[in-house]
């Protein structure tokens, strides 16, 4: 690890991989959503790290991007979990491999 920036980027990459792994290997729809949240968070860490160590921190680009991304992620979580609850009410399960019918 040569520079601070590389350290943060590696942590973010690892977190992204963990989130991706979680989204791919778990069966529960909520856990998949959590995995996606982790991936978004890893991206935020990248944005903040680039803002901090980048050439123009006073332009605030990375920081703003991260703040907007936090807001969008909150909306995504609300709608995603609402969908999971709606599906659960319909099929009585939140396990993704049991929700395999196209017909309601």
């Amino acid at each position, binding site marked *: *690890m040569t520079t*601070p*920036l*590389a350290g943060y980027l*590696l*942590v973010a*990459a*690892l*977190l*992204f*991989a*963990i*989130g*991706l*792994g*979680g989204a*791919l*290997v*778990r*069966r*529960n729809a*909520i*856990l998949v959503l*959590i*995995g996606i*949240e*982790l991936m978004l*968070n890893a991206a*935020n*860490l990248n944005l903040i*790290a680039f*803002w*901090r*160590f980048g*050439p123009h*921190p006073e332009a*605030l680009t990375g*920081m*703003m991007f*991260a*703040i*907007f991304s*936090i*807001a*969008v*992620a*909150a*909306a*995504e*979580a*609300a*709608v995603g*979990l*609402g*969908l*999971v*609850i*709606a599906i659960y*009410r319909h099929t009585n399960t*939140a396990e993704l491999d049991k929700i395999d019918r196209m017909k309601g």
Partner: protein
Amino acid sequence: MNAVFYILAALTLAGGLATVLLKQLVHCALAVTVAFAGLALLFLQLDAQFAGFAQILVYIGAVAILIVFAILLTRGSELPKDGVFSKTWFLGLVIAAAVFAVLGWAVLASVSAVPQQNAVPSVTVRDIGIALVGRYVLPLEIVALLLTAATIGAVIVAMHEKERPR
């Protein structure tokens, strides 16, 4: 690179790993909260005070609570009989590892090319506010629209399908 960074990184990654590996869904939700908190502390360590507090407020205060509510509403706190991992878990693991390998390689290979500025940026909340309603006002409005749409959408999706007569 200092000790604080290593501790926070370890905390965040441990939270993330626990989220993915734990069986009980509520434990997963609590573990992901640890990961969120670790990330917020990393933001603070990167001198992004506003983003760090916003992260705590939004993720721990709202998203984590939403997740636990969803878990309880879908009876997710009961362990499923046939395991928590999908049948294709190995494939998923390979893909995740491959993605990490590519990302890590990209980071390490481009270390020398990345610009490096170590001076602490002096950004106050006031600057952020002025930027939000100045240069970034259009994204702000779009986010406002998106949040309104998401609120209405989430309510409609999660509403009872049949209106019960009163």
